[in-house]
């Protein structure tokens, strides 16, 4: 189900009412689990058995692994679990990509092609729920958590519908205690949850779909990228779209969970106000970047070795992070670009340290501008249909001769409007750089908050254009 559908609205009203009406905590959890599977089946019921089966197998294997005292034997079980999960992810997500590239290679070498072509659709949210399971199993292996004896609790942890298909990627350390102990009904929490759902829908429907997507689509869907102004408009529009789309989803997810008494991790913290790329990754899709840090980068060695080892670990992590988003070279390049940015940042910091250059208003402003420009440029690779289009667009963006005053004067209403909203978004993120959304909401007086939410609902109701799937649903 999509949060921005009337089907979800009806579903959520019924489920929330039923959940709080049922008296016993165990029964409430049963309601939530059934609702989560219904939510998933709303997209494609045929993939529900895959979700249930992989979850049950992971739970059983992790339970067994947790009972083994020997570290080396536990490791064997962990390897088996990882292979199983990654094989499922690999088959559904990367098989066609892999075979296409093998065939390109065999064609290049004059060898016959393989005839493999999977027509299986990508199960929605597979990258997210596989990562949920993997983090649980790795934490059990490390001894950081005790495996739960309740299969129902584990299934609910993996499938909890607010975060099932697009995150945030939660860990058992966050959710375990919340699932095991009854959630009290707190009016404040309930109302903040509703407010967050409204804010999330506003971000998705009004900003992402209504203002940014039309300009971004108009640019990225065409084949010619000859004017710098229009390509920049497309790149900025997508920069706004992907934030509002993904952050909108996450805000809805956090809100829906709060209505049900659960707290999910913060996933975005003004990412376009980041100064530096490591700062960006501490603010963008925080649950994924921390997952990659804890379960990939640090196990690879992190920054404990030589400079070249650190660079290797960083590039591997970012490459796989890019590939996690999708089976295409554009995502690989996007990941590698961010890896490169992080390496460059380390170099610049070391240089500044040796020269005794400390942070100042000038260096911070410069750092923010460079970070934003690089992030916007990298988004072109993320969104473009193929690498050729992305390279053509970026070339146009940074070629002086592709700019003409006439192009600036011919910008259409939609692009101007998008630009105004994009600037407002940047301004908001700079102002709220170090203050979470919660603090902002807390500081508003109730009449202001009420009017703001009412206005957002009005704008949502009168922006009933094309409904787009959440971008992160495909990952």
């Amino acid at each position: 189900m999509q949060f921005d559908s009337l089907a979800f609205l009806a579903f959520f009203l019924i489920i929330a009412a039923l959940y709080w009406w049922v008296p016993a905590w165990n029964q409430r959890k049963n309601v939530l689990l059934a609702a989560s599977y219904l939510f998933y089946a709303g997209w494609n019921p045929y993939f529900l058995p895959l979700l249930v089966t992989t979850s049950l197998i992971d739970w059983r294997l992790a339970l067994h692994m947790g009972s083994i005292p020997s570290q080396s034997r536990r490791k064997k079980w962990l390897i088996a679990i990882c292979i199983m999960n990654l094989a499922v992810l690999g088959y559904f997500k990367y098989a066609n990509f892999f075979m296409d590239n093998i065939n390109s290679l065999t064609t290049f070498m004059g060898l016959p092609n393989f005839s493999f072509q999977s027509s299986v659709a990508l199960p929605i949210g597979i990258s997210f729920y596989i990562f949920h399971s993997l983090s649980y199993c790795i934490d059990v292996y490390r001894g950081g958590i005790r495996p739960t004896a309740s299969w129902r609790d584990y299934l609910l942890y993996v499938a909890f519908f607010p975060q099932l298909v697009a995150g945030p990627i939660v860990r058992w350390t966050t959710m375990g205690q919340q699932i095991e102990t009854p959630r009290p009904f707190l009016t404040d929490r309930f109302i903040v949850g509703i407010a967050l759902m409204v804010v999330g829908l506003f971000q998705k429907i009004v900003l992402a779909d209504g203002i940014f997507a039309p300009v971004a689509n108009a640019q990225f869907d065409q084949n010619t990228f000859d004017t710098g102004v229009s390509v920049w408009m497309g790149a900025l529009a997508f920069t706004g779209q992907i934030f509002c789309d993904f952050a909108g989803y996450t805000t809805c997810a956090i809100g829906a969970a709060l209505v049900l008494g659960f707290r999910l991790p913060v996933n975005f913290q003004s990412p376009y106000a980041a100064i530096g790329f490591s700062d960006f990754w501490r603010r963008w899709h925080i649950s994924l970047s921390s997952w990659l840090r804890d379960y990939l980068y640090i196990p690879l060695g992190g920054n404990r070795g030589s400079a070249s080892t650190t660079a290797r670990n960083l590039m591997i992590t970012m490459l796989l992070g890019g590939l996690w988003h999708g089976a295409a070279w554009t995502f690989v390049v996007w990941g590698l670009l961010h890896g490169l940015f992080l390496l460059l940042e380390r170099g610049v910091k070391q240089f500044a340290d040796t020269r005794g250059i400390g942070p100042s208003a000038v260096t911070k402003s410069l750092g923010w501008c460079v970070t934003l420009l690089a992030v916007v440029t990298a988004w072109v690779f993320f969104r473009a249909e193929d690498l050729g289009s992305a390279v053509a667009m970026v070339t146009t963006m940074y070629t002086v001769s592709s700019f003409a005053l006439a192009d600036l004067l011919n910008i259409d209403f939609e692009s101007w409007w998008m630009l105004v909203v994009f600037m407002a978004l940047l301004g908001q993120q700079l102002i709220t750089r170090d203050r979470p959304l919660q603090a902002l909401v807390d500081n508003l007086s109730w009449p202001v908050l009420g009017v703001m939410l009412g206005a957002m609902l009005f704008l949502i109701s009168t922006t009933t254009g094309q409904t787009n799937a959440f971008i992160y649903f495909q990952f």
Partner: protein
Amino acid sequence: MRLFTSSSKGGGARRGWSVILLAAVVWLSGVWLYEGYLRDQGHLPSIIDSPQLWAQERSRIEGADAVVFIGASRTLYGIDLQTVEQVMPASKPVMLALNGAYPMATLQALADDPAFNGTLLVDVDARGLSESNWGAQAAKNQYFEHDWTPNWAVHRRLLNELQRHWVFLTPRLGLFPLLKSAITDAPAPFLAHDTLSAQREGFLNFDRVSGVGLAEMFRVGLVEDLALHPPPSAAHWLRALAPVKKWVQKIEARGGRVIFFVPPVSGHQAMLAEAAYPFAQYWQRFITEYNLVGWHYRESNVFSAIELPDQSHVDARQKAEYTRLLLMDLKRRGNL
């Protein structure tokens, strides 16, 4: 990992419920005022066509009793589904015609769908049969194949109920198009003369629009399109239609049947169509040489009493009669 926590200060349940109440008042007042403004301008509520609405009907084609209409606007706004049920008792009419798009992609998709074994009425003229027009409905079929989910099925049913009563849910009457027309020199949203039912049955009201003006607009559009896509030679055109025969055979092999028909047009529409694709050289040869079931308005005089205000479409007040005449003539000829 930092968790999102609830408000902790200055709050209390009372403050919280006040926020919700105020938000609801602001929202509902805004919507009420906006709805009133749109109605004052003369806009009417209508179900709005979309890939989801089309897919909703596309999912109803199963069963031998299905009578599926595909084509473009003349069928969408011309066929009265109640009359179909009266003339063909125990049938299940399904409207898949699309405004402004020829139906060949849908014909192919239905041929490839083993679930379809009903009756298919294909509204397509010689121009629509040209290969360059085959993809016109491809996007809708792709949406149905890849993006149509139970979630959207429920969503669309609920949206139908809301759109039936509220004008502000019409996308082109949203706040942004209105703001655009107020700020720039873009025209204000036009007053539509068409409405749609939840079953995708269209209705045209020519009291709200100039039929003569529309006829001229269609004439200009057709002249431009013919200049852009000149008709292929009859021989080439006919050869390219060989796959169509195979699609028809696939449906017939499952017990279904396919009837091609060309609804009436008049004035410039008729003259330009005949000049570009002469009836005897194109349509007639397509039907006879591929041994298909076909009906062309030129071969029948049943529509002599039907008026086409824009030379192409029938007013909603005449569509029941229009449908009855078409189906009865098809029956009389043994095609239905």
